[in-house]
C-alpha cells in the first residue's frame, strides 16, 4: 500500500474521531482541545496536498490564535461544565435530520461527480523551493486583489465593531 494513502487514512480517522470528540464531550475545555486536534489534522491534509503555506497558516491562525481565545473565554467564565439535559429539546431531531440529509447529498455527489479515484497528489511533487509560495503571493496580490482587500476591510470592520461593543459608556470622565 502506498505510504501517502496510509497516511491519508490515518489522518482521516483522526479528523473524524476528533470531530466526534468535539461533539460528544460534555466538558467545554475538552471540546475545544478536540477542535485544536481536528485543525491540526486538517493542517497535515494541506501538507499532503502540497500546500505548506496553507498548512502552517491553518495551525498558526486556527489551532493557535483562535482556539486559544476560545479556551481563554471558557476558562475565564468557568463555563467548562455543560448543563445536563437539553436546553432546546427540538434541536436534536432537527440536527439528526439535517445530518442525514447532508450525508446523503455528499454520498450522491461523490458517486455521481467523482469516480472515487483514490489518487492523491504525490508529496514528492512538492518541491522544496520558494516558488509555490511566490506564485501564491503573486496570485493573491494580482488576480485576487479585490477579494483579498475586501476580506481585510471586513476583518477590520469586525474588529472595530468588537472594540466599540466592549468599550462601554464612559461615565464620570470628561
Amino acid at each position: 500500500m502506498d505510504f501517502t494513502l496510509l497516511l491519508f487514512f490515518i489522518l482521516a480517522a483522526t479528523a473524524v474521531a476528533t470531530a466526534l470528540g468535539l461533539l460528544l464531550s460534555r466538558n467545554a475545555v475538552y471540546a475545544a482541545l478536540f477542535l485544536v486536534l481536528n485543525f491540526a489534522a486538517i493542517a497535515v491534509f494541506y501538507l499532503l496536498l502540497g500546500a505548506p503555506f496553507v498548512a502552517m497558516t491553518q495551525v498558526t491562525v486556527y489551532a493557535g490564535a483562535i482556539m486559544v481565545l476560545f479556551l481563554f473565554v471558557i476558562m475565564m467564565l468557568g463555563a467548562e461544565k455543560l448543563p445536563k439535559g437539553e436546553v432546546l429539546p427540538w434541536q436534536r431531531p432537527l440536527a439528526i435530520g439535517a445530518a442525514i440529509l447532508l450525508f446523503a447529498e455528499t454520498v450522491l455527489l461523490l458517486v455521481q461527480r467523482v469516480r472515487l479515484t483514490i489518487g492523491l497528489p504525490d508529496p514528492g511533487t512538492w518541491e522544496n523551493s520558494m516558488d509555490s509560495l511566490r506564485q501564491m503571493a503573486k496570485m493573491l496580490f494580482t488576480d485576487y486583489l479585490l477579494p483579498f482587500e475586501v476580506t481585510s476591510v471586513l476583518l477590520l470592520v469586525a474588529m472595530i465593531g468588537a472594540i466599540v461593543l466592549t468599550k462601554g459608556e464612559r461615565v464620570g470622565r470628561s
Partner: protein
Amino acid sequence: MTLAHVIEWLVKGLVWVLILLGGFAYLTLLERRSLARIQVRIGPNRAGPWGLLQPIADAIKLIFKEEFMPEHADKLLFTLAPIITLTPALVITAVVPFAPETANLNLFGREITWYIADLNVGVLYIMSIASIAVYGVVLAGWASNNKYATLGGLRSTAQMISYELALGLSFAMVIVLAGSTRLLDIVESQTEMWFAVLQPVGFVIFLIATLAEVNRAPFDMPEAEQELASGYNVEYGGMKFALLFMAEYDKMIAICILAASLFLGGYREPWFLRDTVLGVNQTPWLGPLYMFIKVFVLLFGMIWVRATWPRIRYDRLMAFGWKVLLPLALVLVFLTSIGILLAEQIHPAWLWAVPLTSLVAGLISIAGIYASLRSKEYARA
C-alpha cells in the same frame, strides 16, 4: 523517502533533544551562578568544582520526589500539560541550520546536513509552533483547579497572544529583507550584513516579544510570586515540575537560537571577517562555533535582564504590547519594504535608509513612551 532517511531524522532528532537537555541543565547553573554574582552572592558551589554537578544533584532530587496529584485536578490534562509545554520548545528549532551546506558530513556514504528539516516555509513553521506553545501553560493552570494557577495560566495566554502579533511582524521584516521564508536562505543572505544592523529596532522588538512569549523577566507575569504564589506551576512537583522548568529553559535556548539565525547571521561569521581565514566559507566547521557564541551571549543577556529589571505592571505590559510594539512593528515592516523597493529600483545604497528610518521610528516611540509616562493621567490610571 527511504529507511535511511527515517533513521537519519531519528538520530539527528535524538541528538538534538539530548543537546537541549544538557543545555537546559547547564543553563540553570549558569543562571544561578550569574544571578548570584550580580547580586553579590556566591550561588551553588558545593556539588563538584564550581558547582558543576549541581544540575545533576537537582535532577536526582526531582526524580525521587513524590508524584502527587491535587484532589480536584483534571487528572488527564494535569499529566499532559507539562508534556504539551515541553514539546514545542523541543521541536521549534528543527528548521534551524547550524552550518553551511559546504560543511555537510559524509557518514556511511550519506551526506549528513547540519539541520533536521529544510522547510521552504521555515519561518511560518516557527510561527505556528510558537502559537501552539501557549496551550501547555494555560492547561497546566486550568487543570490544577487552583485559582492562582488558573489566573497565572490566563495571564500567560493574554500576554502571549498580545506579543505574538509584534513577534509575527518582526518575522515579516526578516522575510522582506531576505526575500525568503527558508532559514538557510535567510542565514545566507546575511553574509553581507546582519539583519540586526539593517533593522536594529526590529531586532529589539523581536527580543522584547520573545521575552514576553517565554514569560521571562521582566514579563514573568504568569508566575509573579508576590501575587500568584508561583502561578501556573504552583500545584506541580517532582518530575512534572521538572518538565515545566525544562520547557521554560529550552524555550529560552530556542528563542536565542532563532534570534541568532534570523537577525545575527546564524552560523555566518561577523560580516567583516568574511574574506579572512575565519570566514565560514574558508573554514566551514567554524559555523556551529559562531552559532554557539551568539546563543551564549544572547542567553547571558536574558539572565542579565532578569537580574536588572523589575517586573512590569500588568496593565502597562498590555499597553506596551498593543499601543507601542504593534504599531511600531507595523511601521517598521512598511519602512523596510520601502527601503528594499528603493534599493532594487534606484540604487543599492538606498538599503541604508532602512536602518536610518528604523532608528528614527524607534526614537520617536521612546519619546512617546516617555511623554505618556510623565503625563498625570497615566500615573493615576
